[in-house]
């Protein structure tokens, strides 16, 4: 089980590093919109990770057609369809949160007149 999982380690490294980049942006940047962009990068990183999990080398697309046989002499060759469907919901949720974040960002700019998180903190103190 473990070695199949680690076969496509390159994709896991890539997606988790994307999540790392997103985290870096969220943690260090002060501008609210940069933070929202960072959040989006984390979202896409996790989505990539989910898709990477579903795939294994020389997997076939999981749609049954006359030519495309899902099972070849008892071994599953198709990529796993379920995580891909989960990715769909995850993307939609990511969209929702980003939309709300942007709305809040605009409102903050209206009220505070700045987007710099530190200045907002001073204004609030």
């Amino acid at each position: 089980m473990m070695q199949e999982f680690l076969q496509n380690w390159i994709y896991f490294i890539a997606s988790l590093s994307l999540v790392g980049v997103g985290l870096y942006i969220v943690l260090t940047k002060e501008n609210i919109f940069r933070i929202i962009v960072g959040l989006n990068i984390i979202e896409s990183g996790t989505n990539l990770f989910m898709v990477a999990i579903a795939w294994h080398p020389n997997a076939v697309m999981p749609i049954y057609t006359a030519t495309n046989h899902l099972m070849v002499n008892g071994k599953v060759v198709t990529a796993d369809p379920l995580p891909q469907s989960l990715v769909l919901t995850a993307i939609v949720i990511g969209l929702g949160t980003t939309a709300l974040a942007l709305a809040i960002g605009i409102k903050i700019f209206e009220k505070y007149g700045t987007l710099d998180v530190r200045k907002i903190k001073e204004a609030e103190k």
Partner: protein
Amino acid sequence: MNTNLIWLVAMPLIGSAVTAVVVRYKFLDRLITFLTFATTLFVLFLAHVGQSYSWTLKFLGTTLNLTLNVSHLSIFMLYISIAFGTVLAFYSLIDNSRMKGFLLLLVLAANNWIFMSNDMIGFFFAWELMGWASVVSVLGGREKEKSRHAALYYAMMSVAGSYSMLFGIFILWRLTGTFSISANIAYLSSIIGGHPWWVLGIVSLFFMTFMIKSGIFPFHTWVPLAYAYSPDAFTPFLSAAMSKYGVYGMLLFLPLGLLEKGFPTAFGVPWTNYIFLWFGVITAVVGTVLSIFQDDVKKLFAYSSLSNLGYVVAAIALFTPVGITAGIYHAFNHLLFEGALFITLLAVISRSGTSKLSEMGGLWKKMPITFFTFFVGIASAAGIPPFNGFGSKWLVYQAMIKQHLIFATILLFLASTGAFMYLFKAFHSIFLGQLSHDYERVKEVPIVGQIVEAFLMIAMIFFGVQPGYILKPIGAIVKSMGLKPLPVMANGYVAGMFSNVYMPLIGWSLVVSFIFGFILFYVSAEHKNVSQTDNYTAGQIPEDWGLTPETYQFSWNFYQPVEKLFVPFFRIKIDGFFRGIGDWTKATGSAIKEIFVGNAQMYAFFAIVGLIIFVIAGWMA
């Protein structure tokens, strides 16, 4: 399975619910409180030793049975506290201080439950109930800001106390698996031989709670605040009855059979009891010394009640037959004379409107009945023979001397002479000396108050002259604790270890000599009454110097010369220690508050750092 016991607890609860509804109308509120007290006292007559009642409660996953049983000690404590409560409730019909009846009844319900409970859950439930009910009642005091601070200080002490008891209860539950008090104590005394330190640790958890509630030395700092700034009608119950809960708790835990287990003893007393005895003695001395210099009369008597509690604790810590008898007897006497003193104070404060000693004076002309009760009260508080205070103080000395504890007895004797000093100071500053003009219109308390005061005066004299009625039940208590009780030949007889006193004899000799005094007085030449400012002042009249009765009255800085003696003593401040803890927690609190620094990055950073620590901890641990 006698159901009358449950009524002892249920009756006050119902009464409190009813009074809570009518809390708006003061007289109705007090009337129902008094009726509930009276009916509880009546129900108490049906209860006698050996009865028990238990009901089950499905809780903590197992069915627990909460049991009430009546031992000699509990029936004694119940009688004195409810009887005094009824008298106080009767007096409170005419009182107009801001005491809420339903809180007093909650405390009464808890009081009955504590004294009868034989299981730790019920005990703890009642203890905390009494705790918060009394805290809220202390809040109703006259001086707003001070009573708030006093209530908060008292609340913190009692909450800390009950949590330490909660910890102790569950440690015992883990060891013995049962909540019943008698079983746990039996278990403790069975394993005391094996690992004494473990047992002492558990018992000290409980003793901390009891010392806090009775205001013993390290934890006495809340007593003067709570007594002085609680509503005047509640202070008598707080000082007389509620300080006995700690004593009752100690008496529960004392018979651990330390002596039989060959416990190292000092002066024939197990060393733990010896240390505890010194706590009592120090409380007695601290109470007296601090009380001498008080100007607020309620604080003065709060310290006096503290010092009497020190006597009681010192006596029961000896755990010898005469020691326990002296301790419980003094607890009863303290309840009686302290209650009488606080009720008379209640009368004086309600009439004169002030509780400062320097602002009163000469009230005996206006309030004779209160004056006489106060006189009998301070006489018995000072321990003068025909009155009820003497018997127990005398027995306490006998008990201490029997164990060769000379220094402790000397200190207690100092405390008792000091008691006479502050008692006379209060007596003089309130009733004697110059009557100031704005007290001209002061009237005696209404008839209800006079009845209560007369009743208390007669009770003090009766129990002074006939101590047998109290010593017999105490003998039963001592026997139930497995010690040989003191012989009680006749009602008037108090048998000590070194000598014995036949109290009525003193009474008769006083009466006869008073008759002689009066005869001599009326035989000699007649006298003429003069006004209070017509004094021997080398020919001038005080008014010429512009002196008013207030300024001519000597009651400010009454013992100023002695103050120089005790100055080094005042420097050590006990409540500085508790304030230190308070400030430390506040400092750490504000330091920790900095964590929530207020921007999203930091929180997200914490989350990630938490995650990383998680992983490392898992890896490394």
